[in-house]
């Protein structure tokens, strides 16, 4: 039974020599088989939550805990977290010049599995994953994310999700910047992933659009570094109609 448990997480970033608290006590439990949507206005701290779970060095956890099946995630290095089964699809995937997608994927797969993938099946797997996300096989020879369009970068993130097949996936605005066809392709990828046993998904988004293709079990409203409200899929509909105003006002009080 895989469980990602976030308890009273407080996180700061350092800007101009002063610490600014961005996450102000986040508590959230994701069990395997569940999909949680996190929705909230710009700057509310959604990416900060995602990066903190992944271990980005810029974000300093000041208190609280994050555990995966009881193991202390915060004590792990970035790569240990990935090997423990966490995956972050980034809002802004990073370009790595001169490193081919093929080399990158093979190195990552080898690191996560602890052994090199079998050559013959692996090449097939990579081609299939790329094709399913409507990426031409020639992408394997290109440098990681370099010169990719916004949509191609996002689809490349989901191709990695499928190939690396983690236990818990945090998808940070994977839907933004995608046209409707690309959105469907990405949603199908996420749905293939979560159809497997033992997988959990955190889906960070601004729009209910993607939730029509990936139905969440829970919806959380994220405002000013906290979860302001939680509910089922109907909460998303309500947010679409009413916006975040009432939560933002309440948080400002």
């Amino acid at each position, binding site marked *: 039974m895989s469980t990602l448990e976030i308890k009273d997480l407080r996180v700061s970033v350092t800007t101009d020599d002063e610490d600014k608290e961005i996450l102000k006590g986040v508590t959230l439990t994701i069990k395997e088989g569940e999909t949680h949507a996190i929705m909230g206005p710009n700057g509310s701290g959604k990416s900060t939550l995602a990066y903190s779970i*992944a*271990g*980005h*060095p810029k974000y300093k956890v000041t208190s609280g805990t994050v555990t995966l099946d009881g193991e202390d995630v915060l004590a792990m*290095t*970035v*790569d240990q*977290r*990935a*090997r423990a089964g966490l*995956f*972050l699809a*980034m809002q802004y*995937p*990073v*370009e*790595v*010049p*001169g*490193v081919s997608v093929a*080399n*990158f994927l093979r*190195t*990552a797969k080898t*690191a*996560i599995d602890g052994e090199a993938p079998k050559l013959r099946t692996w090449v097939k797997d990579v081609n299939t994953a790329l094709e399913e996300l409507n990426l031409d096989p020639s992408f394997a020879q290109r*440098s*990681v994310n370099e010169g990719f369009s916004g949509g191609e970068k996002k689809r490349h993130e989901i191709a*990695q999700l499928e190939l*690396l097949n983690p236990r818990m996936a945090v998808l940070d605005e994977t839907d933004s910047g995608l046209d409707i066809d690309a959105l469907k392709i990405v949603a199908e990828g996420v749905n293939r992933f979560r159809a497997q046993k033992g997988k959990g998904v955190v889906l960070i988004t601004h729009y209910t659009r993607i939730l029509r293709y990936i139905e969440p079990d829970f919806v959380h409203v994220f405002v000013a570094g906290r979860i302001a409200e939680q509910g089922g899929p109907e909460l998303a509909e309500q947010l679409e109609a009413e916006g975040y105003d009432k939560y933002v006002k309440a948080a400002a009080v």
Partner: protein
Amino acid sequence: MTAVADALEIERVESHLHPEGSFEVDDHAVPTGREEIWRFTPLKRLRGLHADAALDGSAVGAEYDGPEGVVVEKLDAGNPALGSSGFVPTDRIAARVWHEARQRYAVTIPAEAELDRPVVVTVTGTDTEPASATHAVINAGAHSRATVVLRFVGSATLADIVEVVVGDGAELTVVSLDDWGDDAVHVGHRHAMVGRDARFKHVDVSFGGEVVRHDTTAEFAGPGGDIEMLGLYFADAGQHIEHRLFVDHTAPKTKSRVTYKGALQGGGAHTVWIGNVLIRKVAEGIDTYEENRNLVLTDGCQADSVPNLEIETGEILGAGHASATGRFDDEQLFYLRSRGIAEDEARRLVVHGFFNDLIRRIAVPELEEQLAATVEAELAKNVLATPASRGDES
């Protein structure tokens, strides 16, 4: 034909890019370090090459391996082949080598010969004292195709001149590989005269040596020539690697591409890249681009990078330059590590990525593997050591 010949009458241009040369040693004062061309160089560590240290050493030997048809011969002082590239010393060290070189030799590729494997000259130093001087002339006959590799290994204090004459329509690649031991000092001068419609690729790889300074200059003997200068260097703690380049567009419709990339690691690692390009009035329709990128891997390193373009005609196809020195990109590291890749492996991927396109452009298959392996070995020295284990060592 006369029109072209007339057009090629080169005017004198007042510019610090090409100081008046002289073969007379006494015309070149002993540098003090304040001169523009010497201000980056640690003169104190040159073991007197720039002053009056004897250059009569015999601690440097050359071995030659190459396909049939290539002629390698010793030259006596005064042989007309010496200077056939149009080389004129513009500093004291070059003038001294001109007069005092103990070994002078020529590598000649006959016209229209197409070599099926590289000519390899391995220069091996056995001692840093006394200093030595050599003078080589590589001549690629018209329409020939060849690759010449000069490999420098061992210990030495060496000042040398390598002249290159690329015949009309020839395609020549010269690879200079400084793979010295840690105690070598090497001041090299290279000059190429590139013929009509000829292609010249110069690859300068510098890994080893305590102080390495290369002045590499090139000009065109006729229109349509193409020069590509590629450089790859890796400076470790205390190492000084300096490249001074000058492409003189002396003919119309010529092209030059200069790309140098370097990595620095360890306290006192210092690299210098001076990229000078002059586009003369006659050089209409030319195209040039020069680029230098440095990757700083640790604290305590210094990378100086000065591109310099002088344009005397507006009738050109293109002219540009770029220079950038950056630290290791933490976002790239984070991205790779977030996919499970351990830190040392991630660093290695990023550095290989940095050099990758350059190594591909060198396009000498016999060397590619060796270069990748050498980069790997350099990385193993430092980058792969995590900050923690680095602490353990000290």
